[in-house]
């Protein structure tokens, strides 16, 4: 046994565009961890990486497409889901994952999320929720908790935040789960479950955003927010999703779990034989 050995390469580098590392995300940001879970899940999914495609939108989370060594598409703000639908319908063999942020998917992209879930299109959607628009410097978004300070809510956010698992489940998503970027084993397992299932799958992963959100809301560094996930989260897969909103107060629990895992007919365009 010895101390640490210093090396140049990582075992996951085969699925990464390692020539672009280190990535642009801030120290303490959870995106790298979540991307790590996805890379592992894809390599264990039973489908060759060549048949996976990643579609992302605009935002820090959207940059994931540029770091994974797969057919990857960094599209326009909010339009990752319909782009992914086009990819999938034109080549049903592809396993398409949309990986984007809370603003991209639920603000500008909200309408597309609604209809894709309603139809149960066969795509896997991963939303990294860091409670703000990080890339543009930390403005409020549809998941910003009430009262939080952001650069566009200097007096505290006056709006209620979206409860994403509740929304997804109410729209009929066949797989709904929420974890944090601390719970990497569960994130990895949920991603594997999702990749092996047909239909509209949704995974929300909460992530620290120390520069965009933490700094304005007395959370300190990414590590402090991770500590908060450790103490404040409650794993309750049978929770009533109506109560699964997040307010990021020191006393309130963050409800985590694999909430929904059901079967529904998968979307097929009208006129196509359901063989």
């Amino acid at each position: 046994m010895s101390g640490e050995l210093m090396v140049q390469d990582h075992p996951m580098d085969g699925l990464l565009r390692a020539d672009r590392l280190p990535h642009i995300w801030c120290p303490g940001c959870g995106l790298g961890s979540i991307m790590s879970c996805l890379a592992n899940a894809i390599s264990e999914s039973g489908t060759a990486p060549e048949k996976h495609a990643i579609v992302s939108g605009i935002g820090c989370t959207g940059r994931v497409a540029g770091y994974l060594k797969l057919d990857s598409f960094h599209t326009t703000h909010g339009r990752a889901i319909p782009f992914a639908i086009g990819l999938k319908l034109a080549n049903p063999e592809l396993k398409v994952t949309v990986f984007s942020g809370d603003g991209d998917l639920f603000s500008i992209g909200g309408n597309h999320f609604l209809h894709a879930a309603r139809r149960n299109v066969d795509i896997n959607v991963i939303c990294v929720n860091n409670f703000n628009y990080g890339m543009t410097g930390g403005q409020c978004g549809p998941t910003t908790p009430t009262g939080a300070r952001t650069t566009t809510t200097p007096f505290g956010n006056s709006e209620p935040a979206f409860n994403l698992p509740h929304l997804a489940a109410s729209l009929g998503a066949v797989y709904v789960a929420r974890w944090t970027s601390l719970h990497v084993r569960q994130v990895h397992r949920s991603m594997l479950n999702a990749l092996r299932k047909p239909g509209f799958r949704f995974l929300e992963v909460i992530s620290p955003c120390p520069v965009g959100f933490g700094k304005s809301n007395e959370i300190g560094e990414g590590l402090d927010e991770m500590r908060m996930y450790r103490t404040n989260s409650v794993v309750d897969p049978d929770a009533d999703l109506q109560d699964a909103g997040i307010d990021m107060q020191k006393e309130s629990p963050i409800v985590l779990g694999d909430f929904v895992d059901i079967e529904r007919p998968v979307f097929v365009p009208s006129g196509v034989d359901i063989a």
Partner: protein
Amino acid sequence: MVTAEAQPRVLTGQHFMNGDIACAEGALAAGCTFFAGYPITPSTEIAERLSRRLPELGGVYVQMEDELASIAAVLGGSWSGAKAMTATSGPGFTLMMENIGLGVMTETPCVVIDVQRGGPSTGLPTLVSQGDVMQAKWGSHGDYEPIAFAPASPQEMFDLTITAFNAAERFRMPVFVMADELIGHMTERVTIPSKDRISIVNRKRVPPGSENRLFYAPDEDLVPPMPIAGDGHAFHVTGLTHDERGYPAGDPLVHDRLVRRLTHKVQIAEKELSQVEELMTEDAEVVVVAYGAMSRSARQAVTLARERGIKAGLFRPITLWPFPYRKLRGLANQVSRFVVAEMNLGQIAREVERHLRRPATWVTHAGGRMIPPEEVLLALQETAR
């Protein structure tokens, strides 16, 4: 569902066919396998036709929740290898502009049909105009060189949709067919040739099995071969300015070089793309420039003018963008007087004057009805004097 009674892809024969339907059939003849759209008058018939024909032929028809989703799905379908298209009108064209820009920047082949109607805004949903032709040139932000065609008959709806698909595949970008409500809703003779007589262009594809390629390094024609999702290339596509690997590159030098290449690849092929019809221009003393539905009225005006002893001619751009300026300037060597007649307040007129470097007479109307030949005749008479 693919049935035994399904009609063949190419409906060879003589037809009495509606313009929108002819456009849909042209798409099918060109090899279209994917349509994503949203209903909007006066283009809806294209969607309705393809909603039946595409599934019968094993293709995909999907109605999306809005035009933003439609153009996004079209781009996605194209990256999976499909010949993809959508059809819309002014308001939808406006909504699609951001992703048209994405299609230009990422070099994604696809076709967008704009069956123009009166604008701006909701305007005249059921009536003709030519108000979007400049939008086809400048509608999305940033610099780019679009390709657009203006059919003047249901026959041209068929033919030019095929031309548009071929141009999209050849130049790897969204290509527009700038139709209008009059042509879209008109019924006329359409001759559909046999399948082997229709020439089809397919995109240059990166052969499966190549890895670590510079996916955005162009060939000599300034167009890179296109990788397709699922072929094992592990390529990256982004709307950000990118280098030849396809990776984001926030560098002014890279940006200028990329944007220039995206415009040059079309500009250097202006002659190849340029389609024009000239009527009685050989001895003309005054020429009317008109395109699309308006050219039909202008054609009649030329006849009326000739009957009155005016040596009039018609210059009809079939390719709207890149504007066929070479042929226009060539004509201007012998003709000094020009009239431009269009169903907008002078969009191509500006372009004509810019290329001629002299004023033309404008015959304009914001839309809703064809400008009658008599009005064009009046302009010809006054200009010829």
